[in-house]
């Protein structure tokens, strides 16, 4: 069951009954630094006030992510908020984005790419608080 589903300017965030966070975006989304900062704020103030939590981010609908946004995702603040991230990819663009995120950006938490949510949850459960 989705709890506290919140809309962001470019998508939605929620937490399921098991404590997993979810983030997804509508088709054609272009992520800027403002969007990333907004997301970080919601994670910290709404879902991860008491503990770090794992997140499943569906990046399949994202078209571009700016360099500054990628830096926010790999920042100390994000590492202090999110315990692990599973990126759901379903097309070449999202795979390239995921690879860049994992390869070039040095994240402060474990990050992996999955094509299926259930596999992602399986991996992430070890990172539940």
């Amino acid at each position, binding site marked *: 069951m989705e709890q506290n589903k919140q809309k962001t300017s470019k998508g939605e965030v929620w937490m399921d009954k098991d404590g997993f966070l979810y983030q997804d975006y509508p088709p054609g989304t272009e992520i800027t630094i403002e969007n990333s900062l907004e997301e970080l704020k919601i994670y910290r103030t709404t879902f991860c006030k008491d503990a770090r939590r794992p997140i499943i981010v569906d990046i399949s609908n994202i*078209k571009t992510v700016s360099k500054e946004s990628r830096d926010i995702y790999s920042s100390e603040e994000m590492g202090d908020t999110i315990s692990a991230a599973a990126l759901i990819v379903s097309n070449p*663009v999202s*795979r390239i984005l995921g690879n860049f995120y994992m390869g*070039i950006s040095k994240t402060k938490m474990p990050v992996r790419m999955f094509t299926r949510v259930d596999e992602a949850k399986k991996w992430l459960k070890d990172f539940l608080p």
Partner: protein
Amino acid sequence: MKKEDPRIESILAAITKIAAGDLDTRIEISDALDETDGIATGINMLAEEVKHRIVQHEDENKQLNDTIAQLQKVKAQLSDSEQIFSQVFQTSPDGITISRLDDGVFVEVNKSFETLTGYTKDEMIGHAVYEFGMWADKSVRDKLLEELKEKGVCVNLESDFKLKNGSIVRGLMSASILNINGVQHLLAISRDITDRKKAERVQQIMYNISNAVNLTKDMNELFLSIQKELGSIFDTTNFFIAFYNKENDTLTLPFFVDEKDSFEAFPAKKTLTGYMIRNDRPILMKDLDISKLVKSGEIEDVGTPSKIWLGAPLKIKDEIIGALVVQHYEDELAYTEKDLEILQFVSSQIGLSIETKRAHDDVNVEKAYFEQLFEGSPETIVLTSNHGKMIRVNSEFEKLFGYAPEEAIGNYIDELIVPNNHLREARSISRKVAKGEKIQVETVRRHKDGRQILVSIMGTPIVIGSKQVGVYGIYRNITDRKKADMALRESEEKRRNSLYSSPDAITVSDLRA
């Protein structure tokens, strides 16, 4: 022919631009999000990353250049500091050393330290300070290390240091801890203050000897004091003071302390002391030089030969009154040229002190004579100021006038013992004596009980130099003598009256005729 995807054209154009350096070039991503868009996304992101890295590297390069510039500046400053330090280190008149704190091994020493200790740099570098036994008192080094651990610095620590030739010098040391390449070192600055200390000691000795003139009860005590004071600088086991009599060219020895010999007096002519007096200068001589003088006939062997002899004439102004001599029978290094200088320096003070003491003694003898004469006199003696205030009276005064000395002293003599009807005459006498005139009168004075006493007075001015400082008066009771005179005169009168009034004829003949 299959129609080419227009996005490939865009990708190729973008790659060309990016290769030319336009890293802001971006390829439009379509909604298809297919492989072609994936390639475009990858190229976009790579361009972004490259741009970011270039900016980052430019910033880092700029920072690096700034750091290099700063380092070069610091290096130049360090180089200047090093040069200054090196110059100070090498040219300092104080001995400077750098040694490791943990084991005391010398890392660097300067020229002054070589001169100071007698060890060469090569002998010291790589060896611990302990190996040289430089610290005469190891507890002082412990104190230094303790203070360094506590405060990191130690200033003006005095200690004795042993030199290579075995002699001991007094040093003043300051030290601080220095970190060289992470290893703690001791930077120590040492100064030889032996001469300064000796000079201070000499000043003290001169002061003490000068004081001893007043503090010692006789000449022998003064000589003992001089021997003790000089003994704090050099060996005075064999020590004598001689007085020189120019008239008969002899030396008398009022103070003679010696392990081997004993003299009271000897002719000056053929002695080393006499030789020194003739030449009018202090002498430091070893046995070989003394032998040469003996062989040349200048002097003769007197007493046990000493290994080293040090003496100085004692002078008052330009006149030699005697000599002060120390000698050692075993150690020919017992005295040095510096001791000679010191002896020369203090000998004038010693001569003056001895002469002053002699004068004091003479004064004391004179004073004793005076006391005997004053108190033992059968006459009444009074000392007054020029204005007649009594300064001192002898015991006869009380017998004659009835006033005890403590009653009389401080009072004016005319007010105490002159009857009212003799005040004018008494004042006249006082004025005359005050003007330096000697007087001798017979008059009347008053006893404490009011009796009038016939006295003869002899008043004499007391003059020191050309200045009259008081009056010396001798009073003699002449009442009995006057009465006897009166009785005699009355008896003669009676005899004369009976002779002329007799009815018989009386003749007086001179039978010798």
